[in-house]
């Protein structure tokens, strides 16, 4: 039980690395920085592996959670109580406690695993950058925050990690802080995330106010207890607020705008934070709160719809983008939409499974893109690439695998997870949503298209780069290609963990997670008790949908092949040719940023009038200057008038008979008596004291 008992050490390894960088980083050699930071993450990964192994032994397949409370870091010690719904009081307490169950073990494994690979990759990628120790310090701080987030046993500690990853995201997006675009992107990410965080903290507090605890285990137990009806309004509100938080962190529809801009950061950051781990925090949190969400069907529906819309919306933008990382960014948003779709239709395990597989191939895609950019001397525009497959073969091969995986070609990882989601959307335990399936299906088609477009534009066709750049193209160092290969293996194999029953698999992944999600299905007293959805009678339908989605992937890829396989210097975009207005809209990301600028930030004006926060500021400034200050000035004038009168009164009435009168009285008859005791010589006072002493002495001696 050593590892389980010392689970709190896992986040502390990277924290140690970050602290070392913070205090001593400036003076350390690169090799030392590598040893400390990468070493910390490697140790954390090994520790996490042993911990999970021990946990499976501990849980014996029952999935009972392991809770380890170190100390109470935020609490009223019984002084700060809130009234629970059943009339009892509960103490406001948040522990530094750690919770390990199947859900967090999965996150623990892939966060540390992928994080370790990306750290190793960064050694090569950042080798020639300034601020080396700063980068690794931030990365380790991020690992610390992320591990805190996923190992937390209550909402408050989770919020600490949640804010920590947000901070690290901000720091790392703005890593090249001398670039204005980078700092702007960092600010954008931070501010947009704040909106989500506000929702999250409100949701968490509502939940704990209503249920009386921050702890996940308590909340789950209460939600399962049957005290709460399905559709309980407070729980619905809490769930929706939590989902607002998830929207912010996981880039869902209204709040997704920061993620594409976040690509200003170094590529490993994009891979680690903005593709593989941090953005899945929202998914994690919703999955973690599944017991609450199940009790709030409205919230579930909202999640599903938002997820589906995000998926198709982002995918459509991704169709025409030219920046290689931007395509991947929109792809990430789109895939996150898939995950929320899964969560929303109640297929939590499927959503988590997609998170898991997505972590591999999306990290791989980003790292591959980083490798391409590295080879292209910093060029990110796909219009200036082409014909790289022979020059950087390892990158090419691994990226191809990832593309196939994300497009959903069997038997690669993406196929299993995506089809599980689509199937669940079509026919889940909580109802059937054919429209959502249709949207997902369309998204799958688009995914295949834009990923194939990326591959063809980058690796096929004619070379379109300048000669100097072409001259410098080289394969990346071992420390970069190594992680690519490992991740490629993961992209191929990760899906095999969750082969669905319909394909003769056992869905080990789902089984492993079942305790986390199955409890509520048993406990929720819903009249429509869910059945095993993938029964024998639906097998045919399921196979048909699978075939359909594979066909969609192939068709999408085929189209892209037709248009881009031989793209030369002056190639044309098919959408631009066939529907120019649509192309403009897509190319400008549906004008969402501009709309936000008009509506919220006030950066753009309609005529002379600003809207949004800046507009409100201008309005209140005008109000302050004209109305408030005017009133103040008027009051001031009145005061002066009163003062003039008052001065006269003071001078002739108060000072005259009332003040000088007593003074004269004091000066002549009273002061000589007072002077006997106080005339300024300290020793006279001492003499008075001695006189008192004498008096006491005489009294006591003669008594």
């Amino acid at each position: 039980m050593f590892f389980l008992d010392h689970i709190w050490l896992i986040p502390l390894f990277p924290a140690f690395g970050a602290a070392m960088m913070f205090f001593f980083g400036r003076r350390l050699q690169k090799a030392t920085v590598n040893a400390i930071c990468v070493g910390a993450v490697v140790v954390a990964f090994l520790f996490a592996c042993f911990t999970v192994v021990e946990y499976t032994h501990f849980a014996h397949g029952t999935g009972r959670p392991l809770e380890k409370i170190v100390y109470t870091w935020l609490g009223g010690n019984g002084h700060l109580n809130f009234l629970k719904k059943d009339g009892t009081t509960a103490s406001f307490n948040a522990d530094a406690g750690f919770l390990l169950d199947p859900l967090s073990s999965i996150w623990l494994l892939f966060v540390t695993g992928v994080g370790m690979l990306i750290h190793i990759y960064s050694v090569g990628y950042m080798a020639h950058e300034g601020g080396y120790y700063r980068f690794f310090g931030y990365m380790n701080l991020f690992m610390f925050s992320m591990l805190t987030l996923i190992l937390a046993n209550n909402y408050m500690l989770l919020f600490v990690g949640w804010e920590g990853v947000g901070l690290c995201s901000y720091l790392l997006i703005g890593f090249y802080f001398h670039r204005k675009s980078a700092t702007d992107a960092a600010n954008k990410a931070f501010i947009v995330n704040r909106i989500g965080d506000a929702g999250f903290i409100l949701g968490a507090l509502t939940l704990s106010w209503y249920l009386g605890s921050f702890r996940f285990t308590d909340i789950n137990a209460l939600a399962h207890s049957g005290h709460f009806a399905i559709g309980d309004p407070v729980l619905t509100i809490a769930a929706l607020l939590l989902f607002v938080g998830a929207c912010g962190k996981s880039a869902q529809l209204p709040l997704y705008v920061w993620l594409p801009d976040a690509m200003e950061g170094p590529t490993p950051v994009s891979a680690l934070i903005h593709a593989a781990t941090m953005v899945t925090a929202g998914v994690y949190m919703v999955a973690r709160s599944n017991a609450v969400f199940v009790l709030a069907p409205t919230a579930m529906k909202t999640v599903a719809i938002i997820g589906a819309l995000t998926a198709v919306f982002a995918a459509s933008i991704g169709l025409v983008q030219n920046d290689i990382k931007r395509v991947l960014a929109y792809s990430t948003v789109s895939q996150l939409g898939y995950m929320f779709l899964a969560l929303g239709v109640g297929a939590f395990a499927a959503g988590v499974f997609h998170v898991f597989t997505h972590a591999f191939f999306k990290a791989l895609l980003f790292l591959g893109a980083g490798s391409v950019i590295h080879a292209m001397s910093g060029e990110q525009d796909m219009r200036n690439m082409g014909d790289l497959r022979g020059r950087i073969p390892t990158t090419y091969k691994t990226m191809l695998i990832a593309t196939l995986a994300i497009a959903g070609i069997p038997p690669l990882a993406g196929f299993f997870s995506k089809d599980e989601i689509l199937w669940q959307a079509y026919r889940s335990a909580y109802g059937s949503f054919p429209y959502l399936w249709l949207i997902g299906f369309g998204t799958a088609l688009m995914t295949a298209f834009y990923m194939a477009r990326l591959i063809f534009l980058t690796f096929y066709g004619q070379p379109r780069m300048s000669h100097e750049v072409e001259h410098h193209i080289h394969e990346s160092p071992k420390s970069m290609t190594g992680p690519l290969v490992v991740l490629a293996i993961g992209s191929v194999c990760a899906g095999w963990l969750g082969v669905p029953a319909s394909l003769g698999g056992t869905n080990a992944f789902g089984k492993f997670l079942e305790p986390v999600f199955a409890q509520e299905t048993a406990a929720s007293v819903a009249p429509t008790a869910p059945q095993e959805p993938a029964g024998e009678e639906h097998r045919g339908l399921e196979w048909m949908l699978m075939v359909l989605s594979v066909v969609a992937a192939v068709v999408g890829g085929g189209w892209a092949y037709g248009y881009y396989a031989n793209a030369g210097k002056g190639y044309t975009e098919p959408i631009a040719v066939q529907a120019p207005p649509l192309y403009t809209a897509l190319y400008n990301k549906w004008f969402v940023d501009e709309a936000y600028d008009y509506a919220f930030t006030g950066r753009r004006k309609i005529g002379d009038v600003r809207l949004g926060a800046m507009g409100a500021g201008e309005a209140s400034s005008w109000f302050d200057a004209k109305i408030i200050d005017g009133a103040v000035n008027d009051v001031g004038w009145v005061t002066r008038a009163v003062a003039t009168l008052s001065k006269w009164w003071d001078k002739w009435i108060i000072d005259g008979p009332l003040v000088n009168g007593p003074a004269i009285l004091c000066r002549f008859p009273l002061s000589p008596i007072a002077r006997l005791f106080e005339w300024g010589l300290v020793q006279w006072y001492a003499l008075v004291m001695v006189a008192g002493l004498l008096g006491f002495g005489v009294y006591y001696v003669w008594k």
Partner: protein
Amino acid sequence: MNLAMNSALNSTINSGMAPVATPWFFYVLAGVAVISGVLVITRRNAVHAALALIVTLLAVTGLYLMLYAPFVAGVQIIVYAGGIMVLFLFVIMLVNIDRSSKERRFNRIWAVGLGAACALLALFVFAFTKGKALFPDRGMPLAEGSNTQEIAKMLYGEAGRMGQYTFAFEIASLLLLVAILGAVIMTKKKI
């Protein structure tokens, strides 16, 4: 206190283990203390007064030793003679001494003050003569060898028990801290 007990005590104290404490010592030390005390208040020069005060303090230290209070004596030497008096000498040297040594020594009310002090002395004399019978001829025995240890036990306690004066001791340390800060703040030109 009866006489037999007194003589018994007398024999234990004078049996060779006691320090050489004869009445002569007392008279010499008391005389030195009082005479140099007079010098303290009459010397025109402040340095001379300070030196006379040191002599008084050392004489009083001797009296403490005769009273079986070696630890108090040690503290007196370290704190008073080694610390406070050096501070006094410092300050005297820092402030302008030439001027004050040429001025009047006593203030305007010196006659009244002297009178009050004489009255106090008279009161003491009267009280002592009246209450002479109240005081026993000889003190109780005090273990000199373990004096320090006994004081430590009362100050800090022993074996996990808080001493009688532990709290007072802590308060005293706080007082000293405050005094240090106060002195530094008042004396420094620019903090």
